């Protein structure tokens, strides 16, 4: 299993590196196609949205602490807080909610 994990890591690294380096070395001109540019613009947002929800709800010990963390993170991000601030606030919300609910 251990060796297998390194094979997985190697495949990930090769694919990711190829995506990054090929345009820098081969395609030295700008992509003009509107659909391709738009597609590439939307990709990160769709990917991150799909990865975040509903997976976040089962990341912690209780669905309620995770839901509260998600809600607070959305509000903080909406107000334009930094990545670290939003991230740590979400962690803080989970910690406090679980401190209360698992202690009582």
């Amino acid at each position, binding site marked *: 299993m251990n060796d297998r994990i390194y094979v997985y890591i190697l495949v990930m690294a090769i694919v990711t590196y190829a995506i990054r380096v090929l345009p*820098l*070395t081969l395609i030295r001109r700008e992509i003009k196609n509107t659909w391709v540019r738009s597609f590439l613009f939307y990709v990160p947002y769709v990917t991150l949205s799909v990865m975040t929800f509903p997976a976040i709800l089962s990341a*912690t010990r209780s669905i309620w602490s995770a839901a509260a*963390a998600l809600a607070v993170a959305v509000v903080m991000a909406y107000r334009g807080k930094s990545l670290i601030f939003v991230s740590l606030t979400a962690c803080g919300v989970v910690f406090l909610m679980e401190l209360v609910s698992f202690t009582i």
Partner: protein
Amino acid sequence: MNQRSLQYTTGIKDGIPIGLGYFAVSFTFGIMAANTGLTPWQAIVMSLTNLTSAGQFAGLGIIKAGASLGELALAQFVINLRYSLMSCSLSQKLKEDTPFIHRLLIGYGVTDEVFGVSVCKFGKIDPLYCYGLLSAAVPGWTFGTAFGAVSGSLLPDRIISALSVGLYGMFVAIIVPPARDNRTLAWVVAASMILSFLFSWLPWLRMISSGMRLIFLTVVIAGAAAFLFPFPTNEEDCYE
């Protein structure tokens, strides 16, 4: 100080905030990697060789599911496809006579944040500036992973539980501000989350593995959005 070493030190200076942010996020990645069953060394090697949050994070889920290498490669391709656009754009910012070897090395470090900082610099950029950025960003990402993977087993459950949402918190912080300012993007994000929920909940659909679900939904939703709401050209260059 000569001109070239000044480029390098400026890069380091601009890269320090990136490195600090990476440290915090990769700490939670390290914890998750340990929970998935990776050894600290495996987590460290993954962070050092991949240098990407969303890709590595999705990779953990795919490894855990024991999916095929083909599925893993396809998922990484789709998730990290955005880097190709950044590399194209960054390629325009390098001096034309930038040697091939420098292009190979810079390619390793194209992340959302490194790209965002580089591409918004005035004028052409020197490879040494990029190396400066990476000298701050890469250690932040790698050491954060190491600390997370090692200390994850020492920390109490409630701390682990709290830190487990850290990476999701960062994703939310990336998605929400542009979606607030762009109604189309807000609908795209909402549709992504609703479909993702349906795919993980409805019978039959939920039997699709998480990697395939991510690939399928990304291609279909981003493809449809690009078709229905094409993005005006030359506007996203400094969207970071």
